[in-house]
């Protein structure tokens, strides 16, 4: 039996002829991707190639001859304790944020799924709003809340007879101060992604499982979680990438402190770019390393959490 696609192709071939159809299709396709291709080439591919080349030189803008240094810039940045520490911090942030955000958004998606009335629509709209706020605005909001002298949180603590918290003088609270706004910003979006996943699971599965006497735990393990693999993959990749490349929140909330406990790789590179005694190529080498490591970790996630379609294939 012919598939739908084969039927459609033969219809077009009859109408336009095989070659003509192919030509027309190709032109439209190329024309449609051309703007994106051009912009990506100008703003991504060319700068990336230049950056990779520069990372192998001791680049000085006014030098007559740029000195090739091989992997020295990479060795230098990898030998820098602050850079390595920033990766450790980022991995810690990523682990906490991915785990907590997955649990929170997955749990809240169940609440949304069971909110059938008009309040459900309102709640879905409200929780999405933080996602539209920039990290800079979020940092300012949380800075006001955590201000040592007159912030809301410290005001409550003082009223309760407790000591105020100085986030820039306490390693644990500094990390919490970076993680909480990050969770708040992404909570709505991730909950809606999970919610979309949940409502896509056919009800028949649950009804059949109920008839077979399955409890909620069995349904969760055998129906919900396997059906949601693609949504988890999307969420994990997004959270992992954003956590490892965090910049504006630690920059504004703690400036990487106290004592580099909230320093992230991108924040380190931003600060190190101003290390005037070092060639900017060292920073570029660091940026390429960040890109490679984030890419590699995402690849690991892709392989570890096999997508539904690949399983089907």
């Amino acid at each position, binding site marked *: 039996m012919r598939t739908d696609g084969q039927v459609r192709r033969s219809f077009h071939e009859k109408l336009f002829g095989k070659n003509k159809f192919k030509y027309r299709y190709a032109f439209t396709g190329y024309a449609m991707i051309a703007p994106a291709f051009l912009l990506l080439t100008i703003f991504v591919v060319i700068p990336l190639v230049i950056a990779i080349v520069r990372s192998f030189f001791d680049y000085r803008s006014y030098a007559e001859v740029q000195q090739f240094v091989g992997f020295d810039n990479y060795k230098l940045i990898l030998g820098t304790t602050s850079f390595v520490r920033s990766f450790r911090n980022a991995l810690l942030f990523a682990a906490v944020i991915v785990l907590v955000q997955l649990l929170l958004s997955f749990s809240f998606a169940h609440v949304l799924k069971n909110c059938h009335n008009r309040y459900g629509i309102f709640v879905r709209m409200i929780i999405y709003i933080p996602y539209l706020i920039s990290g800079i605005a979020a940092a300012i909001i949380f800075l006001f809340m955590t201000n040592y002298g007159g912030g809301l949180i410290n005001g409550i603590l003082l009223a309760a007879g407790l000591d105020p918290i100085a986030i820039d*003088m306490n390693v644990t609270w500094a990390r919490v101060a970076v993680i909480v706004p990050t969770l708040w910003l992404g909570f709505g979006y991730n909950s809606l992604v999970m919610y979309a996943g949940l409502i896509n699971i056919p009800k028949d599965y649950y009804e059949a499982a109920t008839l077979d006497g399955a409890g909620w735990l069995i349904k969760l393990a055998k129906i919900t979680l396997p059906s949601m693999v693609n949504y988890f993959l999307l969420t994990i990749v997004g959270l992992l990438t954003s956590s490892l490349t965090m910049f504006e929140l630690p920059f504004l909330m703690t400036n990487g402190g106290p004592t580099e406990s909230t320093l992230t790789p991108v924040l380190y590179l931003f600060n190190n770019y101003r290390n005037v005694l070092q060639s*900017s190529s060292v920073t570029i080498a660091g940026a390429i390393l960040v890109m490679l490591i984030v890419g590699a970790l995402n690849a690991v996630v892709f392989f570890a959490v096999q997508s539904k379609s690949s399983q089907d294939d």
Partner: protein
Amino acid sequence: MKNWKKIGALLTALVCTAGTAAACGGNDDGPEEGATVVTVWLRDFEDWSNEVMTSIMDDFNKDKTDMLHISYRFISEDGFGDALAAAQDNGTAPDIYQVSYTNLYSEVRGNTILALDDLLPASSFEDLKDTAKELVVYDGHYYAYPQLTEPGAVMYYRKDLLEQAGVDYSDIEEWSFEDLYAACEKLKTVMPQNQGKYPMLGFDFDEAGWATQGLQANLTGGDVCLSEDWTEIIVDSDAYKQLAKFYAELYGNGYVPVTWSTGYNDQIIDLCDGKVAIAYTGSWAIAEIMESYGADMAENIGAATIPTLNGGADKGTTATNGGWALVIDAKSKNPEAAAKIIEYLAAGEDTSAPERYFEAAHYSKTIPRKSIQEKVDAKDTSSACPSEWLDTVGKIADSAIPESIYTFDINTQVIGLMQNIVIDVLDGMGWEASWNARIDGVISEIQKIIENNGLAGNNPRLQ
């Protein structure tokens, strides 16, 4: 309808262009025909500073006979480095730009600026004070002309609050650490924490990497973090232990707030607002007091050398001389014309332009040239600011040292050590136990930085 659309588009373009021009902060009323245009990039500092520099350069441009024209821009401090690096990469760098003394060496090392020895008259360099000269000379060449210097650590105090607390400040110029602690203890009674008030603001950890260098030199007897030739780390010493103890005393006894939203450069605001009775900051605070609070507040504020371990009449170095100098880009097409502009702005025989600047600054910037200093000394400057402030700041500047020029990561490590000790102290640990637990790690990190950057034996100020 089409016309309206065109007008709309034109207006939008006009607004955008005007906005861009305004954002760049430049001004250009056009050069005389055939004139050499010299581009100058300055930092976007305080309003009064930008205004007086604009006025000085506009006055230069009014003369249409010299065949020279200044095209200037003020660029925010945050974006200056990036803008300059991009312009140098693209071949559009300005002829003249401002460089901090700390960053001057990197410009020399990167060959991005010209030596000025043959471009400016020898008399301009001879007129420089020794403390200014040492900031701009590398390998025996002058690479910049000092526009201003600023001692980065001065102690300001509120006379009324000290009197209320019963603190005798008649000998404040000679105070030791112990005298400071005793004063802070008394000040606690009139500066209650539950009202958001504290005895003092010291060196915050964000800026302490450079702001404490004068105090570090005072404690060590001259060097900061490394020996003079950069071969030996001097942090594991009694001098730095005393610095750690100083921090532990201030934070552990609640003399300073655990954290504070006002940065080191602006701490004078909290002093004037009565939130603290003593504040450390730089000489630039004089201009802030006079511009924003006026003479009445000035009468109630004193300025003194910061306390040291032993105190005394002659404390020696207690501050670094920071500040700004003018340089000529190595690829300037008109270096001779650029040199003429530097002469007008800072280095020439006619000192009217720099004099105007220092007057507008309420003499909060110390003067790098002997001839200008003599003229100012001969003037009655009492209307600009209290004369005792100028005496104090002048004395601090005379004994101040240049900021360190090795990679700043070393200073970050040392101040990170101090911050960690304070965190431990606030958690109930003793400062010495914290020191013992952390010092080896810091020394090992500094050693790695020295090796990675090839610093040992390469202090350019010794070559």
